[in-house]
């Protein structure tokens, strides 16, 4: 584990990002699809074409993609634009920039993913650790099977059930959306409270399902740490049992959680996107569904590229902070 690793790791990050951008460039050309024509014919079939707008659009896109230029030049231009997060205009919301459409949706998803991930990691690790700890209450052992059963079911299916029981029948929570329609998204306390109320059920769907993944891994690791020599010595020291649990058990058992969180993040985000679709939550997922329904290729490619980039970035950051949590791992050459 040296600086060489660091360079390679950053190299992998750029490779993923470059791959994601290239994929978006190559696929339509292999499939021989022209996004603009697709969209035009779709609009025409709805009889909803305002000719002035269409002219401007076609002109813009031809110029933008340089369709008269050689292929390699188109490619370089394309990659260069993506590298600068310049995805051009949204086809459906012309003349709004894809970037500004996405930037409206991104905070919603970011907050939802981050908050629910932190909560499920904490609860999952706590549950898994307590189930494996001989001194803990048996209640945790009873809690374990239902949590594990839930973990087998996709987030959004749990989400649908949550909507039915807690929003439709009991009316404890609003029926989907990110904020009450009609309230203006101002950044004041009332709006935050309203947004939080809307976010509880989607977050709960993610948390309920994910706790199990975290808990079962934690349980396995806690069992392992109890067989370790350092646990025996700590006990021989007469350390108090909370210290054995927290500093010798949990502190060591939680390390693989970081790695597996990084590995499953892509999976989590895919699930969150569908949760948003179920709840009509105004984040990236709902935006993605709209772009699919509208054949808004520029928006779609922009979203996909940004999601892949965000996950690659998060994974990179997790990899880089890991040595701070496990002193045995170091990427710097030892003096």
């Amino acid at each position, binding site marked *: 584990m040296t600086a060489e690793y660091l360079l390679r790791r950053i190299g992998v990050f750029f490779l993923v990002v470059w791959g994601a951008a290239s994929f978006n460039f190559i696929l339509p050309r292999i499939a021989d699809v022209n996004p603009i024509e697709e969209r035009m014919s779709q609009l025409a079939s709805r009889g909803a074409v305002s000719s002035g707008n269409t002219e401007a659009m076609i002109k813009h896109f031809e110029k933008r993609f340089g369709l008269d230029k050689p292929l390699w030049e188109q490619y370089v231009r394309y990659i260069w634009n993506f590298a600068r997060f310049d995805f051009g205009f949204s086809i459906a919301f012309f003349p709004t920039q894809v970037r500004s459409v996405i930037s409206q949706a991104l905070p919603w998803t970011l907050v939802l993913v981050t908050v629910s991930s932190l909560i499920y990691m904490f609860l999952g690790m706590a549950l898994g650790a307590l189930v494996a700890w001989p001194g803990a209450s048996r209640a945790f052992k009873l809690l374990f099977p239902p949590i594990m059963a839930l973990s087998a079911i996709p987030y959004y299916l749990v989400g649908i059930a949550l909507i039915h029981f807690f929003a439709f029948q009991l009316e404890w929570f609003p029926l989907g959306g990110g904020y009450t329609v009609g309230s203006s998204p101002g950044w004041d306390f009332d709006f935050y409270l309203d947004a939080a109320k809307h976010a509880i059920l989607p977050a709960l769907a993610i948390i309920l399902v994910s706790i199990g993944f975290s808990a079962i891994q934690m349980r396995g690791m806690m069992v392992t740490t109890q067989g370790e*020599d350092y646990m025996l*010595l700590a006990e021989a*020291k*007469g*350390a108090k049992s909370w210290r054995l649990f927290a500093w010798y058990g949990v502190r060591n058992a939680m390390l693989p959680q970081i790695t597996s969180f990084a590995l499953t993040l892509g999976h989590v985000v895919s699930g969150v996107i569908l949760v948003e679709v179920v709840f009509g939550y105004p984040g990236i997922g709902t935006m993605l569904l709209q772009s699919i329904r509208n054949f808004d290729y520029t928006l779609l490619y922009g979203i996909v590229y940004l999601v892949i980039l965000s996950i690659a970035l998060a994974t990179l950051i997790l990899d880089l902070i890991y040595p701070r*949590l496990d*002193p*045995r791992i170091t990427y710097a050459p030892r003096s």
Partner: protein
Amino acid sequence: MSAETHANGGHSAALDVNDLGVSYYTSSGEIKAADGVSFSIMPGKRMGLVGESGSGKTTTALALMRLIKPPGRITKGSAVIDGIDLLSLSEEEMRTAKLSQIALVPQGAMNSLNPVAKVKNQIIDGLRDHDAQHSASQYRELVTELLDKVGLNRQVGDMYPHELSGGMKQRVTIAIAISMGPKVIIADEPTSALDVVVQRQIMETLAELQDELAAAILLIGHDIGLMAQFVDTLGVMYAGRLVETGTLRQLLSEPKHPYTQMLIDSLPSLERKDRKRGDLRGIPGTAPSLYALPSGCPFHPRCPQAMDICPSEEPLLKVVNDDHVANQGEQQAACLLY
């Protein structure tokens, strides 16, 4: 057996173990990993406990620390330090007794330290949990002092275990063991993973510190050669029982139990202080499975001097001193020959 052991132990012993039994309860029944183990160690003395793996020596060590885990259980006996029986203390009382009365230098020092904590914190946290109220700077001084005693630089306190060599790690575990000046130190094969030169150094450090504390040491091991250089008395374990005890000289020159005799015979010359290790592997036959112990004397299937009575009667420890070494103390063996 108990009457005789008590006569030997007396009241001034640092550790007096009497009729200790440990069993593991598995689906195939009860396994007696240690049965009727009795011995005592005087303050400032060092006793060695040798035996093949599975003979119950580590089980005995863990039982004295009350570290036997389910499905294992201490079934009987007592272990008295200062008039207090460790085996009848409550969990919390035992926790306090650890480190202050009895401390462990563990087997396998390679993994005995928490990989994610600095050495100094691992020394301190044992003290903290014994309500040692010190300021941060006092703790720092204490750590430096302890590290110095075991021959380590004060910088080691700020290092992580993976940055230390095996010998250094073992020294840290010794520093932890002596941090509250215990009356008894149990060293469970403390040097088994180390090379010969380091082994000697560590043992010397341990011996020096023990002299300073006037503590008693119970040294567990399978290497009689290494042990012979450090211990005053020796106990030999076989199949969970103590089969012979006595002074080092008694056991080396006049072993009574046929098993001990074979052990001693299998050693390379002890007088030559060369690097040959006196491992216990040169004895014909295999150690019996604790699942199915032979009846009577468990050693009889391997014993060259076995008699007709051996499979049917279980021998108890009894005094077997020869007259001309009687002044050295009692020698006991559990063998029907005597």
